[in-house]
């Protein structure tokens, strides 16, 4: 990626070599690859973090990111570099597929009262996991037969905190009917709505990096994983690695839902494409737990 050498008022110029070093480090830790299209975005965010920490050079800042024992600045940097634009009931045809196809198949031979585990990652500010919960309560006839656990995780601590708070503006809610809004939200005024406490309390929000095997051991035994619009930011090797880790997190016969522009075909042959309710999802084949 070619970065212009640019004089900034407060800090020394960041050289193309510095950027190269930064991209390599960020990639190794997160699997995320920045393309040329993102050059300006990355530069702006990086300069902001350098300034926020009071550093005068990239080198000084980079030392903090790499060696700070608390890891706080690394987390701040991740938070600023990740994109978190979403809304309720986005790509909801996959939720139809979940209640019409995936869950009936998964629970066919499961006894009443047993657990069904669903994981939303990256969950961003919580719209996806809350949408899953609402969709299940509204549309899955057997929802009361099982203990449904919804797990939600993101690499960005800031969005996870926002998700736990469960407060949203009108824009996030625009695809929700008035009935659902009044049933699951409390109006706070100022065009703000808070999701009801029962729903907030039923979802387990957590910070996790899906390319970190140690992080992923927390999410074993899943029946359905929503991992939408994340793998597109990874390069081929990181995609392979993260899909392998997701494979380990799924129960045999479990499903992964990817974003509408993503496909498992070039990443892994360990999943079988299945068509439910006008969408393709991917089922774990084999018994490998």
């Amino acid at each position: 990626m070619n970065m212009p050498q640019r004089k900034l008022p407060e800090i020394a110029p960041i050289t193309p070599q510095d950027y190269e070093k930064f991209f390599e480090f960020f990639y190794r830790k997160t699997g995320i690859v920045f393309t040329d299209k993102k050059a300006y975005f990355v530069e702006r965010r990086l300069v902001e973090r350098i300034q926020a920490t009071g550093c005068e050079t990239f080198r000084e800042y980079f030392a903090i990111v790499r060696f700070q024992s608390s890891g706080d600045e690394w987390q701040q940097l991740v938070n600023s570099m990740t994109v978190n634009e979403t809304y309720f009931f986005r790509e909801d045809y996959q939720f139809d597929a979940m209640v019409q196809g995936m869950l009936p198949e998964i629970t066919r031979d499961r006894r009443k009262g047993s657990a069904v585990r669903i994981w939303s990652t990256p969950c961003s500010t919580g719209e996806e996991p809350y949408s899953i919960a609402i969709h299940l309560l509204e549309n899955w006839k057997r929802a009361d037969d099982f203990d449904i656990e919804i797990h939600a995780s993101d690499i960005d601590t800031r969005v996870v905190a926002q998700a736990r708070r469960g407060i949203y503006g009108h824009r996030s809610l625009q695809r929700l009917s008035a009935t659902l809004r009044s049933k699951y939200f409390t109006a706070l005024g100022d065009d703000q709505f808070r999701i009801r406490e029962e729903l907030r309390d039923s979802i387990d929000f957590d910070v996790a990096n899906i390319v970190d095997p140690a992080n992923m051991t927390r999410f074993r035994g899943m029946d359905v994983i929503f991992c939408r619009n994340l793998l597109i930011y990874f390069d081929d090797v990181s995609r392979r690695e993260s899909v392998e880790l997701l494979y380990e997190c799924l129960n045999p016969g479990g499903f992964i839902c990817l974003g509408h522009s993503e496909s498992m075909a070039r990443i892994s042959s360990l999943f079988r494409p299945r068509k439910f309710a006008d969408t393709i999802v991917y089922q774990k084949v084999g018994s490998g737990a």
Partner: protein
Amino acid sequence: MLVRARKTVECAQEPSGSDPARDLVSGADAATRRRAAQHLRDKPEHIGLLCERLGEESDASVRAAILTSLVRMKSPAVAAGLVGHLRSENAALRSEVKEALQDMPDDVQPVLERLLGDPDNDVRIFVANILSTLAHPRAPKLLARLIARDPHVNVCMAALDGLMEIGDASMTAAIAELPRRFPEPFVAFAATAALNRLKG
């Protein structure tokens, strides 16, 4: 009904004292062998072992982990170790290896170039398949070389398939020659289709 998820404890990936190289060979279950393969991801000294196990391993998820580790450590040694599996009788393994090799274009290109002269027709067909989607600037030239020189019609047809996608007008002479070398009607048909496409 919705219930609060039970918190699980983040556990270490492997008990201390375990030996991934040993587990990869003799781990009792697929999960153990898979994790062993993942632990060897940054250990180039085990490239030989990983390549060898690939041919022995019956579980697809373990083979996938082995291949991911090898792609992560991509090098001429990895490419050389992997191409041996193109001779395998196991079609699934061959196909997995082809996909992995496509993820290491710079390392595999010289190895594929050498295999253009392999005595096994099937191997040369696989080479043509890999070159067809390899992100390497020499891939079209190597396919054109197969079309110009390879004595087996199926190898030439596999190369022609690739050239239809990635070839250019400079390769039309070799393609036009194909029906004379192989007088079967389908060769003439395929060559004409390719020429029309490449000449625009």
